[in-house]
């Protein structure tokens, strides 16, 4: 007997420190149905599902199960109600066996000999859904797909009628994806309901019955997959017909500043995430790399700026080979960098603002004589950055962690472009900033372009890419699906390219 026949979320609001993540979201899912939750990164999908799983409490709104309102105060509540969730990053103990991991979260685990008693249930379960699992193997010996199965079994054994899967295919091989979908179809046939969070259109179309599209925290569309197509879903996800209101004046293309020649880069998990990529960026140009997060853009940026090793291929800045050189050498060669995780890479939070104002420049002659730092010069420089880049702070003698995110970003921007580097690599420079700071930063990037700088911009914000960039490359799984001029009409299908469903040769 299924506990949940119908689940509704009505008018859900949730904000974090004043930043809305979910606004007036309605969502319905019924027994025997697979619902896709589609949206760009940061659209609020995971927040919404975390509310359903009891991790967050909504500021406003109701959750109804079988038309009855319920309170989900903790994951335990949700599990009792029959809701299970498999997170994008698995919550398994690597050194324990499959059985031990399952027993750990299982409410009916007996106190004595838990493994023996649970073993039968797991085996029976595996048979029922027709998949193989070796119960005594340790988690670290399993592939990502097998680990995911363990998570799913865990949820289902706990009586989950509604299973939430957060980006389930992002770590799987194509064969594993097929197996997963087979499994989901069998679940569906047995009356379970599934919600899949994804931004991959092909998968949504293949496995889901209905799709709810979220954009910037709001539902922008609901559709049956049988009556819609990828193109219209892509447009819903992006949120608008792509606009071409260019505010930047055309500039003649300058000399080659950055040349990336056939590079391959390996990611944290040991797999190649950037495949033989090559491109050039010219002076007076902003070159944008658009794509959904996790398609190799972070690794590409890190490889070019010297933080990550390049496996093959070469990178040149103004003709100087910077392949696998130290970040300091690369900086001196003319490359400045606004890192993606600005708090993680861009600053030393416990040091003073003026210390952070010279993070990559402290070795320059103007800031140090022999062994000693010239603090009077450094403080002057810090003051001019604070003024010139409108960092709002009452003093430069404060610890940098006391600045707001936007002000830290302005400080980093100022630090990186005040020396007028020939090339600026900017990763998501406006992510998380308010409207004013965003406009300001974009203006500064355009100014730098006008002055003859070359800018390599990584962004998930398509509006930003369209507005700022002279050329746009769409990255998917470590390869460019297209490199297009900003006026190219084919950009209307950028959503499809980002989802890997369309490649354009140029």
């Amino acid at each position: 007997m299924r506990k949940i026949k119908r689940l509704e979320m009505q008018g859900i609001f949730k904000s974090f420190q004043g930043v809305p993540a979910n606004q007036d979201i309605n969502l319905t899912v019924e027994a025997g149905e697979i619902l896709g939750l589609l949206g760009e990164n940061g659209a609020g999908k995971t927040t919404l599902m975390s509310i359903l799983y009891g991790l967050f409490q909504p500021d406003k709104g109701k959750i109804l199960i079988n038309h009855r309102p319920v309170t989900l105060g903790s994951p335990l509540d949700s599990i009792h109600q029959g809701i299970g969730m498999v997170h994008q990053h698995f919550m398994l103990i690597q050194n324990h066996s499959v059985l031990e991991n399952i027993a750990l979260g299982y409410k009916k685990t007996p106190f004595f000999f838990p493994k023996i008693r649970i073993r039968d249930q797991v085996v029976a379960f595996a048979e029922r859904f027709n998949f193989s699992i070796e119960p005594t193997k340790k988690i670290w010996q399993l592939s990502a797909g097998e680990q995911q199965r363990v998570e799913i079994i865990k949820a289902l054994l706990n009586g989950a009628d509604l299973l939430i899967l957060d980006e389930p295919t992002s770590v799987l091989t194509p064969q594993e994806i097929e197996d997963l979908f087979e499994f989901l179809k069998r679940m569906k046939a047995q009356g379970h309901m599934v919600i899949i969070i994804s931004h991959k259109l092909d998968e949504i179309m293949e496995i889901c019955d209905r799709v709810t599209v979220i954009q910037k925290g709001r539902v922008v569309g609901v559709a049956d997959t049988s009556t819609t197509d990828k193109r219209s879903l892509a447009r819903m996800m992006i949120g608008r017909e792509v606009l071409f209101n260019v505010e930047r004046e055309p500039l003649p293309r300058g000399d080659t500043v950055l040349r990336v020649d056939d590079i391959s880069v390996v990611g944290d998990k040991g797999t190649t995430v950037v495949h033989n990529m090559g491109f050039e960026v010219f002076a007076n140009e902003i070159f944008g790399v658009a794509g959904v997060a996790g398609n190799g853009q972070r690794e590409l940026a890190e490889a070019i700026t010297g933080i990550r090793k390049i496996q093959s291929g070469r990178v040149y800045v103004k003709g100087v080979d910077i392949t696998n050189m130290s970040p300091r050498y690369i900086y001196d060669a003319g490359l400045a960098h606004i890192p993606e995780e600005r708090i993680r890479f861009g600053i030393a939070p416990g040091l003073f603002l003026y210390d952070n104002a010279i993070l990559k420049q402290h070795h320059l002659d103007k800031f140090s004589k022999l062994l000693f730092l010239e603090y009077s010069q450094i403080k002057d420089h810090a003051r001019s950055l604070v003024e010139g880049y409108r960092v709002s702070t009452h003093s430069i003698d404060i610890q940098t962690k006391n600045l707001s995110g936007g002000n830290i970003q302005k400080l980093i921007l100022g630090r990186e472009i005040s020396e007028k580097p020939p090339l600026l690599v900017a990763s998501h420079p406006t992510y998380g900033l308010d409207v004013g700071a965003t406009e300001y930063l974009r203006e500064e990037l355009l100014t730098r372009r006008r002055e003859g700088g070359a800018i390599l911009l990584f962004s998930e914000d398509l509006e930003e890419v369209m507005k700022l960039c002279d050329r746009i490359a769409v990255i998917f799984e470590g390869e460019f699906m297209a490199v297009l001029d900003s006026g190219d009409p084919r950009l209307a299908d950028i959503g499809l390219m980002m989802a890997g469903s369309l490649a354009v040769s140029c």
Partner: protein
Amino acid sequence: MFRIKVSDRETTTELRSFLTNVASLGAGLCAIGLVFVVCGVNPFFAISKIFLGSFGSMYGFKETVTKAIPLIIIGGGLTLAFRARFWNIGAEGQLLMGAIASTWVGLAWGPHLPSAVIIPLMFLAGFIGGGLWGLIPAILKVRFSINEVISTLMLNYICAELVTLLIVGPWKGKTRFGFPGTDNLVDTATLGVIPGSRIHYLTLLLALVAVGILWVVVFKTRFGYEVRVIGENPDAGRYAGINFFKTSLIVMAISGGMAGLAGVGEVAGIHHHLTYPAAISSGYGFTAIIVAWLAKLNPVYAIVSGFFFAGILVGGDAIQISLGLPAATVQIVNGILLVCLIMGDFFFKNKITIKWGR
């Protein structure tokens, strides 16, 4: 039911930092008092005895200064290592290596060289001995990712056994009548003391100068800047192109070298020969960890915290004698204070809110 929520404290002030330390020490003293109660000793009497024993009498005070010397030098050196997030637990071994190196120089050349030459040579040898020993875990860490806590800790035992080996074996003195220990250094190779005390003032002076120089290095030089950046945020250090290998090696050479200097002071200033490792050091290398921590990783503050912990060592000896408590009491006191300081640091960095009800 209640829930505890831990969140980052966004703003921190110097005053709060100071008050946290005071409160941590206060909490520590309360906990120590409990230990005394369990031992059947009046806690107020015992604690007051500790401080009277160390700061309350002329004799006690002189002893406190004597013991503060190694604590200040080593603690100062450790502030640099800890600032670079290099958890050097091996100062004890680095001290012993400094002692071995300086004893060797003192025994070999002491009789042939004037005092003004041999003493600086011994300090130099001690610095190099401790520094080289400190380089081993640094290389292991940067080149082979071997955890420095384990390697520095283990290297301590090697040093202790090496000292024991030397004093019962090849270096055993002819004047010792078969007892372990090297011959005494010639008088010209020993350090003068303030009359009526064991305070080897040359080492004390060196300690004060060294932490002063280290302060300048940490806060005014490029190298110190790089150390601070790495310690605050290693990822930012990588992003800024700071050479971790070079920085770690220099940090550990200085940190180990300063511990080595302390070893020179103990041999040339107190014992005048190499003896059992436990006699040379009595755990200075470990106590100095707390000294560095209490100093908030500021080398100059290590002077104050070094004196404080020297006082506890001396006061601990005093209560051992007068109250008949076991020798381990001092270590318990030190341990409790360290735990309290670390907990205090946690409360300083994080905000704790407790919510009642489900």
